[in-house]
C-alpha cells in the first residue's frame, strides 16, 4: 500500500467511494483518505479552521476532512471582553466539536508539531502522522518577544488575547484590584488580532470601574498613534467616561507620546516605557504579534512574520497545496477579525473543493462585520464587502462598507449592542453547529 501513488490510489478507491461516510470514522488512517477520494487536513479549529472544515464537507462529502485541534473546547475571543468586565460568564464563550463531527469531520485532539510540505504530511506530538492532499493551516496568532514577558509573567500579567483561562485570570484581577489602582493595558503595534479589541476592552473595563471602583481608571500604553474606530471610540469615551477631562476614566498614551513599552517586570508588577515606569496590581499585556509558531516552523512565513497567500484561494505563496487562513495569513485588505477569518475560510474551502474536483478557481467574495462595545448598552460596528480584482492581486478591494455614524441616538447604539450578541450566536452556530 505504501508505494501507491495518489493517482493510482484515487483509481482504486473510486470504485468503493460509495461506502463513504460511516465506514471510515475511526482514528488516523495509514492511507491518505481511507474510502474517501481525497483528504484535507486542517490545523486549528477556531473561527477560520472549523468553518473551513464544515464548508468543505457541506460542498463535497466525498472529501475526508481531518481537523487537528489540541483543545477539546474552544473559547471565543469575540465577546470575551464582556467576561473581563464581569457581565458575561466564560461558560457561554465555550464551544465543542460535536457539531463538526455531525458534518462528518474527523476531529483529532492532538497538538500538530510538524508540517512536511514536501512529503505532504502533518505530525502530532503524540507521534501520529496525517497525510494530506491539501492542507489548511489556521492556527491563529503567536506573540513576539517582550523583555520580561515569559510564560510565568503571563500568569501574573495576563494577555487574555487568546480567550479561556487567561480571560478569567484578568477578570479576577480586575475584581481584586484596589479602588484607586490603575488598570494598565499595554496595546500592541499593528498588525494584530482584532484591531478594535484593546479599545473595546478599555471601554468595558472603564464601565466596570465607573460602577465598582470609581477612583480607578484605565491607562492604555499604546505602541501606536491611532487605532481602529478611533473617532467612534474617543467620541463614545467623551460621552460615557469623561474622556479628555481631568476626571477621565480612560487615559490613552499614544506611541509618539511615550506609550511604547520596552520591558516588563512581573515580580514588581511594573511596565517600563522609554521615560517612565508604571506599577499596578492589574496589568494587561497584549504583546506584538506574528503568525503562530506552527506556521513559522512549516516555513510558511515571510520576513514580516505573517504567511503570504494568494488572496483568491488562500494558498500559500511559499508551499503548494498548503493554505493559510485566519489571523496567521497576510491577507492584505482584510482585517484580522473573526468575521474575516470566517469569510476567508469559505473562500478557501470553495477553492480547495474546486481544485480537488479539477474545476477552475471560483470567484471569491468576502465580508467583514465587526462589533465593539463601549458599554453593555452601547455598540458600534464596522462592516465591509470586498472583491478580488485580478488587476490588483496583492490586496482585496473594498467595494462598500463603513462605520456606525459618529452621531446617533441612544437606541441605535443599543440596537448595535443587541446585534453584537446575536452576531455572536449566529457566527458560532455557523462555526460549530
Amino acid at each position: 500500500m505504501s508505494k501507491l501513488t495518489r493517482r493510482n490510489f484515487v483509481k482504486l478507491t473510486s470504485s468503493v467511494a460509495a461506502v463513504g461516510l460511516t465506514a471510515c470514522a475511526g482514528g488516523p488512517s495509514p492511507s491518505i483518505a481511507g474510502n474517501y477520494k481525497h483528504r484535507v487536513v486542517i490545523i486549528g479549529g477556531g473561527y477560520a479552521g472549523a468553518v473551513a472544515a464544515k464548508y468543505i464537507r457541506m460542498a463535497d462529502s466525498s472529501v475526508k476532512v481531518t481537523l487537528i485541534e489540541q483543545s477539546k473546547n474552544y473559547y471565543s475571543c469575540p465577546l470575551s471582553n464582556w467576561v473581563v468586565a464581569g457581565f458575561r460568564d466564560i461558560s457561554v464563550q465555550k464551544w465543542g466539536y460535536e457539531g463538526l463531527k455531525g458534518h462528518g469531520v474527523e476531529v483529532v485532539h492532538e497538538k500538530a508539531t510538524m508540517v512536511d510540505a514536501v512529503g505532504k504530511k502533518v505530525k502530532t506530538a503524540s507521534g501520529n502522522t496525517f497525510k494530506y492532499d491539501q492542507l489548511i493551516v489556521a492556527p491563529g496568532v503567536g506573540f513576539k518577544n517582550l523583555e520580561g514577558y515569559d510564560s510565568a509573567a503571563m500568569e501574573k500579567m495576563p494577555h487574555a488575547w487568546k480567550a479561556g483561562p487567561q480571560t478569567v485570570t484578568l477578570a479576577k484581577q480586575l475584581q481584586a484590584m484596589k479602588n484607586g489602582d490603575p488598570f494598565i493595558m499595554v496595546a500592541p503595534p499593528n498588525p494584530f488580532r482584532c484591531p478594535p479589541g484593546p479599545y473595546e476592552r478599555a471601554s468595558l473595563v472603564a464601565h466596570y470601574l465607573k460602577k465598582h471602583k470609581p477612583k480607578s481608571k484605565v491607562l492604555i500604553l499604546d505602541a501606536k498613534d491611532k487605532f481602529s474606530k478611533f473617532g467612534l471610540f474617543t467620541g463614545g469615551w467623551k460621552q460615557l467616561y469623561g474622556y479628555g477631562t481631568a476626571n477621565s476614566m480612560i487615559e490613552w498614551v499614544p506611541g509618539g507620546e511615550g506609550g511604547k513599552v520596552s520591558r516588563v517586570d512581573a515580580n514588581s508588577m511594573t511596565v517600563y516605557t522609554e521615560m517612565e515606569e508604571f506599577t499596578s496590581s492589574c496589568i494587561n499585556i497584549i504583546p506584538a504579534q506574528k503568525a503562530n509558531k506552527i506556521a513559522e516552523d512549516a516555513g510558511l512565513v515571510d520576513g514580516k512574520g505573517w504567511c503570504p497567500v494568494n488572496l483568491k484561494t488562500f494558498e500559500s505563496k511559499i508551499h503548494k497545496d498548503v493554505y493559510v487562513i485566519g489571523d496567521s495569513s497576510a491577507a492584505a485588505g482584510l482585517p484580522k477579525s473573526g468575521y474575516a477569518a470566517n469569510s476567508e475560510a469559505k473562500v478557501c474551502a470553495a477553492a480547495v473543493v474546486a481544485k480537488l474536483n479539477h474545476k477552475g478557481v471560483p470567484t471569491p467574495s468576502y465580508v467583514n462585520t465587526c462589533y465593539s462595545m463601549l458599554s453593555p448598552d452601547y455598540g458600534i460596528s464596522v462592516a465591509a464587502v470586498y472583491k478580488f480584482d485580478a488587476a490588483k492581486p496583492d490586496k482585496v478591494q473594498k467595494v462598500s462598507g463603513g462605520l456606525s455614524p459618529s452621531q446617533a441616538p441612544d437606541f441605535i447604539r443599543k440596537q448595535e449592542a443587541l446585534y453584537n450578541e446575536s452576531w455572536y450566536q449566529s457566527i458560532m452556530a455557523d462555526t460549530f453547529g
Partner: protein
Amino acid sequence: MQRAKIHMVVLAGGFLVGGMMFGTSKAEAGATGAMLANTCAGCHGTNGLSGGPAMPTIAGMPAEYLDTIMADFKSGDRPSTIMGRIAKGYDVKETALISKFFASKKWENAMSAPQSQNRTMIDAKKAKKGKKLAKKAKCGKCHEDDGMAQDEDTPRMAGQWVDYLIFKMQDLKNKHLDVPQPKKMAKRIKKLSASELEAIAHFYAAVK
C-alpha cells in the same frame, strides 16, 4: 393597490442606485450564489437559519421579497444599522443570486435553530393575548395563515425569532426611522402600544 404601488416604486429606486454604483467584473465569471450568500451566514446563520435572536432567519423567504429588501437597504429607503453599508457592495445581479440562494433553503422555526441561547423565551400568555390583538388589528389581511404565508411583499412571521419581531415592530412605530410600510399597516401599528406589539410578536413567533 396601495401595497403593490409602494413595492414597485421602491424597486425602481433600488435598481437605479444599483446600476450606477457597481458593474460586474470584466472578463471573469462572477461569484456564485453560494459564494456570495455564505458571507451572510456570520450574522444570518448557515443557509440563512439565524442562531441569534435579534437577527432574522431568512431561509426559504421568497426571492422577490429578499430582492426588494436588499434594494431598499441599498437605496436607504429602509433604515438599518449595517445592512445599508453591506447591500451597497452588490449589484442587482449579485443580490438576485443571494436572494435565490436563500429562497432555495428550507425554513426552520427559530426555536429549533442550532445553539439558540440567550434569547427571550416565548410566553404563552402573551402569545394568547397577541393572537386576539392581531385579529383585532387585522394583521391577517396580509400576514395570512397566522403569519405562515409569504409573498413578494410579505415576509413570513410564523416561527421567526421573537426578539427580532419585537425590535422590528418597535422600529415600525419609530418616527426617527421612517420604515417603509403600507399606509394601512402604519395606521394600525400606531394604535398599538409597545406591550401590545410585544404580545403580537410572541403570537407570531409561537406559531409552528
